[in-house]
């Protein structure tokens, strides 16, 4: 006779998915709640830096594209919050944890979008890095998370392609436009690499997450994939690579790269990025301004229920 824990590990080892009503170790559940809700918060907070440029997009076409992309991010947040809720937590509590700073979101969104080229760099590099991670997570062991990732990856390709198309237009444009593209690349390249998290040796949650197959590839392996795939893309744009130590390593079959400024990484995670305060304040404000809608829905439901009870008593 197998114990619940043995049965759980048997499923994991057999590449079977864990579904909401299955027995699971409490730490597995908590680990998933942390990771999926953090992912959801990132999608929603990520709407802000891009939303900043919707009213200033240089053409109606670019504006419609950007609006659609930001709308997608809201949708992705919804898929992920719903997946988290299958673990028995309330969405209101998840949001409260993000607003209080107890729960994190991807620190890349604490960087400001200073120019229009940043919108291109975000689609290309930030969504590009997210895709590398999310493709891997399609094989995560938790069923609802895996299915949300599959749906998100399907939609995400448009995000990266519109960003890169925008970068082509700028990089192949006037000298001023090209300089703007280079500047955006310089500012977003390193933070995009940081999105994969600390080196494997320093990663707090990695080992257990790999055993439980919540994560399928390590931070450094995923980062390497992104570094390799981005090199020809930078070359095609005719821009300078921001990493001066980048060098092809024939033996490894990968690019060797310069070291990330980890002090900056931890600084931003710990709340000292350019926009940390602004992002959370904005989220709280939007949430509070929408409170009357939620209150009205609750009041309406209470009235409807009272009416039904009354009818039932009269009958």
């Amino acid at each position, binding site marked *: 006779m197998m114990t619940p824990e043995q049965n759980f590990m048997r*499923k994991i080892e057999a590449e*079977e*998915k*864990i*579904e909401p009503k299955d027995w699971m170790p409490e730490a597995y559940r908590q680990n998933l709640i942390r990771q999926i809700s953090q992912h959801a918060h990132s999608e929603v907070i990520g709407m802000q830096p891009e939303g900043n440029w919707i009213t200033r997009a240089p053409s109606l*076409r670019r504006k*419609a*594209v950007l609006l*659609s992309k930001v709308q*997608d991010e809201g949708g992705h947040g919804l898929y992920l919050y719903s997946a988290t809720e299958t673990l028995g937590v309330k969405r209101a509590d998840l949001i409260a944890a993000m607003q209080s700073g107890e729960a994190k979101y991807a620190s890349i969104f604490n960087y400001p979008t200073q120019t229009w080229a940043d919108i291109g760099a975000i689609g290309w590099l930030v969504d*590009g890095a997210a*895709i590398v991670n999310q493709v891997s997570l399609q094989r995560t062991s938790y*069923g609802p998370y*895996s*299915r949300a990732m599959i749906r998100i990856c399907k939609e995400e*390709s*448009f995000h*990266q*392609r*519109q960003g*890169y*198309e925008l970068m*082509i237009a700028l990089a192949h444009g006037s000298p001023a436009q090209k300089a703007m593209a280079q500047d955006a690349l310089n500012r977003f390249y390193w933070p995009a690499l940081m999105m994969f998290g600390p080196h494997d040796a320093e990663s707090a949650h990695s080992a257990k997450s790999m055993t439980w197959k919540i994560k399928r590839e390590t931070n450094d392996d995923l980062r390497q994939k992104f570094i390799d*795939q981005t090199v*020809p*893309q930078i070359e*095609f744009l005719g821009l300078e690579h921001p990493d001066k130590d980048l060098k092809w390593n024939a033996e490894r079959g990968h690019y060797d790269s310069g070291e990330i400024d980890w002090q900056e990484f931890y600084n931003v995670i710990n709340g000292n990025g350019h926009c940390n305060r602004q992002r959370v304040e904005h989220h709280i404000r939007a949430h509070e301004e929408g409170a009357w809608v939620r209150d009205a829905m609750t009041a309406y439901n209470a009235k409807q229920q009272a009416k039904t009870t009354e009818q039932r008593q009269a009958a």
Partner: protein
Amino acid sequence: MATDNLELYEVFVRARRGLDHKHVGSLHAQDAEQALEYARDCYTRRSEGVSIWVVRSRDICASQEDDSESFYDPSDDKPYRHATYYQLPEAVNNM
């Protein structure tokens, strides 16, 4: 058999862990518990599934196909939501 006073249930079956539950058909039953047993006997006689959902048919709120033109109209004129809308040169087209 008189089914008039029995509830109609829609049956969804998950073929394998990791997949979505998929609609397979409907049946009449006295209550949810009985519907589950009937669904097992009707729809999963050959190990077609690892999990079954039954939902009262009258609890399903469905869009009408006749209205689909106006219902889906808002997304019909947004081809830029598709990845294929963006033409990239061959050298970088693998994103």
